[in-house]
């Protein structure tokens, strides 16, 4: 099977063509389990050189830590860099493994947003990082328009760290409920046991109304909203939530 022959997993003659990871590498040796990986240093990923040529100013730093290449990118250009990594035929980072953030215990250090990308055809792995300085707005561009898989990963990151992903179509809380108002649990200033006492948390849970578990959008299905009691409708339209 040659590159570009298959469309949607089907060859031109109609036979099935599986997408094979590592297919762009040709007959090079099969990958092996890494051994004796050094802590720092080593050869960076093959994508770094073309990336530096393409985005000379946007690439701020390249580290190789434990054999993995980390690129620190300008926050305003990160979407362009990822778009290029995804689209460029010599890179083809078509798989988004993870989107997450890191906050250090030293609160002077910037917050990091981390993308883990894989190129299945070239069997490459790269880590893209954006540093959000203290005091700056916690906002980075969403990559949802490139990878549909970013949907929940970005929502979870927003839920846990409060980082806004500009351009995400539906940036709501995911693991915590929508009325949760204690803040962002994975931030270092959030106490391990939560902000409220157990009795207060229980009181809030019992005070919550069942209709608050539906979004207004969901209640618009089948005009369920119109059938609610008047006081529930009023609360939902004013955005007032119980249990807060």
């Amino acid at each position, binding site marked *: 099977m040659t590159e570009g022959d298959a469309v*949607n*997993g089907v060859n031109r003659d109609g036979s*099935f*063509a*599986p*997408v*094979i*990871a*590592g297919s762009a590498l040709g007959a090079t040796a*099969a*990958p*092996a*389990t890494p*051994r*004796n*990986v050094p*802590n*720092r240093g080593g050869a960076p990923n093959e994508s770094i050189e073309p990336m530096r040529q393409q985005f000379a100013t946007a690439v701020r730093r390249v580290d190789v*830590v*434990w054999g*993995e290449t*980390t690129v620190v990118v300008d926050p305003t250009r990160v979407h362009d860099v990822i778009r290029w990594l995804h689209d460029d035929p010599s890179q083809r980072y*078509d*798989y*988004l*493994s*993870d989107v*997450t953030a*890191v*906050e*250090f*215990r*030293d609160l002077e250090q910037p917050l990091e947003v981390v993308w*883990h990308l*894989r190129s*299945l055809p070239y*069997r490459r*792995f790269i*880590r893209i990082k954006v540093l959000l300085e203290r005091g700056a707005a916690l906002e980075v561009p969403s990559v949802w328009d490139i*990878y*549909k*898989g*970013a949907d*929940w*990963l970005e929502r*979870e990151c927003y839920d846990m760290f409060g980082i806004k992903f500009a351009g995400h179509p539906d940036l709501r809380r*995911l*693991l*915590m*409920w929508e009325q949760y108002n204690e803040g962002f*649990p*994975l931030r270092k200033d*959030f106490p*391990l046991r939560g902000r409220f006492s157990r009795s207060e948390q229980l009181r809030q849970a019992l005070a919550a109304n069942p209709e608050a578990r*539906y979004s207004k959008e*969901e*209640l618009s*299905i*089948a005009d*369920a909203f119109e059938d609610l009691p008047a006081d529930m409708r009023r609360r939902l339209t004013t955005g007032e939530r119980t249990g807060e």
Partner: protein
Amino acid sequence: MATTKRTVEVELSTTGLDAQGRPQRVPLAVDEGGNVLTMEAPLGIEPDLSGEHMLINLGPQHPATHGVLRLVLELDGETVVRCIPHVGYLHCGFEKIGEYRQYNQIIPWTDREDYLNSPGNNVAFALGAERLFGIDITERCTVLRVIACELSRIISHLVWLGTTCIDIGAFTPFLWAFQQREEVYEMLEMWIGARLTTSLTRVGGMGADIPDGFTEKLSAFVRGFPKVVDEIDRVITRNGIWVGRTVGLGVMSPEEAVNYGLSGPMVRASGVAYDVRKDFPYLDYETYDFDVPVGTNGDVYDRFLVRMEELRQSTRILDQALKRLPDGPVNVDDHRVILPPKSKATSDMESMIHHFKQVMEGPRPSTGECYVAVESPKGEKGYYMVSDGSSKPVRWRIRPPSFVNLSAIPRMVEGHLLSDVIAINASIDIVMGEIDR
């Protein structure tokens, strides 16, 4: 002419007719004078329900959602128009708790996220921590971990198979699958003393070496298990009901599957040959001879076929691992992470210091970060760990495969029938402990 509808209650009889000789319990049209109109008379205009959509709340306590998953569905008749999933009911903040625990203390938490794959999670976490510590594990430990990974793949797929059969209406394979699962759990019990929450690994080695009689039991299992897989194969693979309820549902094209970040059997059923064991190998998986099954249609049936074949391939890997299992130490000889033997800790000064430092302070890796991914039964399970040089990680991130797989469920169910939602949801093989963490 104004008509009213009412139902006439009549005594039950076997003829199906009431005392007046009319069919029972039919709405009768009555005019203003109370006279019953004939059945041919118009009953008024039926309200047109075709345009109305219905709101259905599936879960979070419905057994067919495989855990506390809640799907809010908008139905047009029986067809799903829109699906809005809600997760997070099991959220317990594993990642937050991990920031307050030493590396070896996190291993019991990894048992509890994807609780059908506990040994595999333990191995994945230990691999990540060892990368941070810069440790290369021993030969024997590598093979033992492969055995642990493949055994946990088998139990996870068996639970998936059994519960999916129940969802779709086949009961017998459930019992056969759980019988075999019990055998694996007995082996794990022999090995580490626990069945579900194994905590099998330690940073730099294993919690225990395999006991006497383990290899015999394992080789008996390797011989007997494929026969059970064949038997289940015969019962359901060509079963008309099974095929009818799974073929053509929840189809994902290869490009879509990659773009949505699907992994494991989900992406392979769509015809993408991506397996972390082959493409980004760990634990010397490149030296084992096994095949990666790939589907062609990307529907529920292909996911089933891929998992069935993975059961057989796991048995092949187990067989090879048993044959090559070397003698030698299980744990690395590194006093930074492995406790000295108890007898030495109480007699030898240096060992006592290492013991004290490890117990009181915990092992400290150098600063750095790593993302270690393994092929869990659900897909690419990644642990991203960041260390600032202290004994506790700054960040311990779990990349849960079934979380990303589940995020594609609106794309898969929309346009299908309500009853197919159950089959599609079952085919994703979700574990809510892993999704909510």
